[in-house]
């Protein structure tokens, strides 16, 4: 019943880049949607993810999607914080990519 908190740590790819900004936020916690806060954090090059979700039993899928994003993004020393409200894996991936894109563009919404 209570809200779930999932924590993951990923090894970053070789020669990781850092997030162009201190932090970047994207998305709205609507039904079937989520928001993500990417921020720089000194983690010895690793990537840390925290997912807050009302859904149970999808830990493996979260891990896979996040691993894919970490591989794709090529960033290290990164903290990924997600507030989820029943987003599907596809939406999760889209929002993560969006957040990264916004950080690179440096633009606000």
């Amino acid at each position, binding site marked *: 019943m*209570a*809200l779930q908190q999932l924590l993951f740590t990923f090894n970053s790819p070789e020669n990781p880049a850092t997030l162009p900004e*201190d932090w970047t*936020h994207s998305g709205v916690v*609507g039904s079937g949607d989520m*928001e993500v806060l990417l*921020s720089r954090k000194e983690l010895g090059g690793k990537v840390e993810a925290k997912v807050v979700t009302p859904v149970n039993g999808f830990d493996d899928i979260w891990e896979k999607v996040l691993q894919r994003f970490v591989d794709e993004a090529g960033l290290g020393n990164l903290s990924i*914080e997600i507030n989820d409200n029943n987003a599907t894996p596809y939406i999760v991936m889209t929002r993560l990519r969006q957040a990264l894109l916004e950080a690179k563009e440096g633009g*606000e*919404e």
Partner: protein
Amino acid sequence: MSHWKENQKASFYEATARQRAFSLVDEGTFHELVGPETRMTSPHLPVLGEAVSFDDGVVTGVGSIRRRPVFVISQEGRFIGGAVGEVGGAKIVGVFDLALQLYDRINKKHPGVENRLPAIVFSFETGGVRLHEANAGLLAHAEVMEKIQQCRGKIPVITLVGSKVGCFGGMGFVSVACDLVIMSELGRIGLTGPEVIEEVMGKREFDASDRALIYRTTGGKHKYILRDSAYLVRDTIGSFRQQLVEVLCMPYDKIVLCRSIGSMELVEEQLKVVATAVENKPRDSKDVWRYYGNEEWDRIPDMEYDEFMEKAVVRPRERRNWKWWQKR
């Protein structure tokens, strides 16, 4: 092209709270206060297994319009229907406090320079109290009401309603307690939401699946004819912004003429509207439009914006003495 410029053409109805907040003030001036990076999530939702949000569904910040400091409050309807909880409520009240503090400071330093004094703009998208944290939500409503009263004679508080969820419940009261209301045709203001009326009073009283009925009763055009909304604008962020800029260039004494509550005279005026309704027993909003002299009352819902603005006859306003305000 910057997001700000693109956003001016974007639909206000569909825009997120942050998009609205960022694009209502002058380009590049918006600074978010207690933004998502502060991670101020609701302490009540996790125990109920409800999703939380880093901004608790309210975007607050400050920017400027024509060098005037403008505080912005923008509610996010996608997050629990924009309902007001403890954190979001505190953020809203905090913005009012900051605006009042700034008013005192500027007024002390540069007395009588009205166009540099702060203003507050509140973009509503809410169903009222967040039931998961009902007491805190109710308290927030009361506090905001009090802050609006404290702003009287000092800071213009402008309501914007044109978002998807509309503005219902307790926040329906709050929105019309502000100094001036700007709506789009798609905006809706009401107290009890359509679904709730149907639930309690039955489908014969109010059919919540009848979209046309909902817009006729709570929508922008109706509110404009009734003068609950001072201005009706097109559904783009740019149109809302343009109207807002225009309003903020008006003297304070003129802005507050658009108030619908707050004095004995206004109460009497509202009571007269009620008396008129009792006398004429309208069965539908169309009867009201007809009463106020709209010849093509039956066609009003179908009219395009330009035609409506040209033909709409609005409720005549009582002439009133507003010197009372200046004394404060």
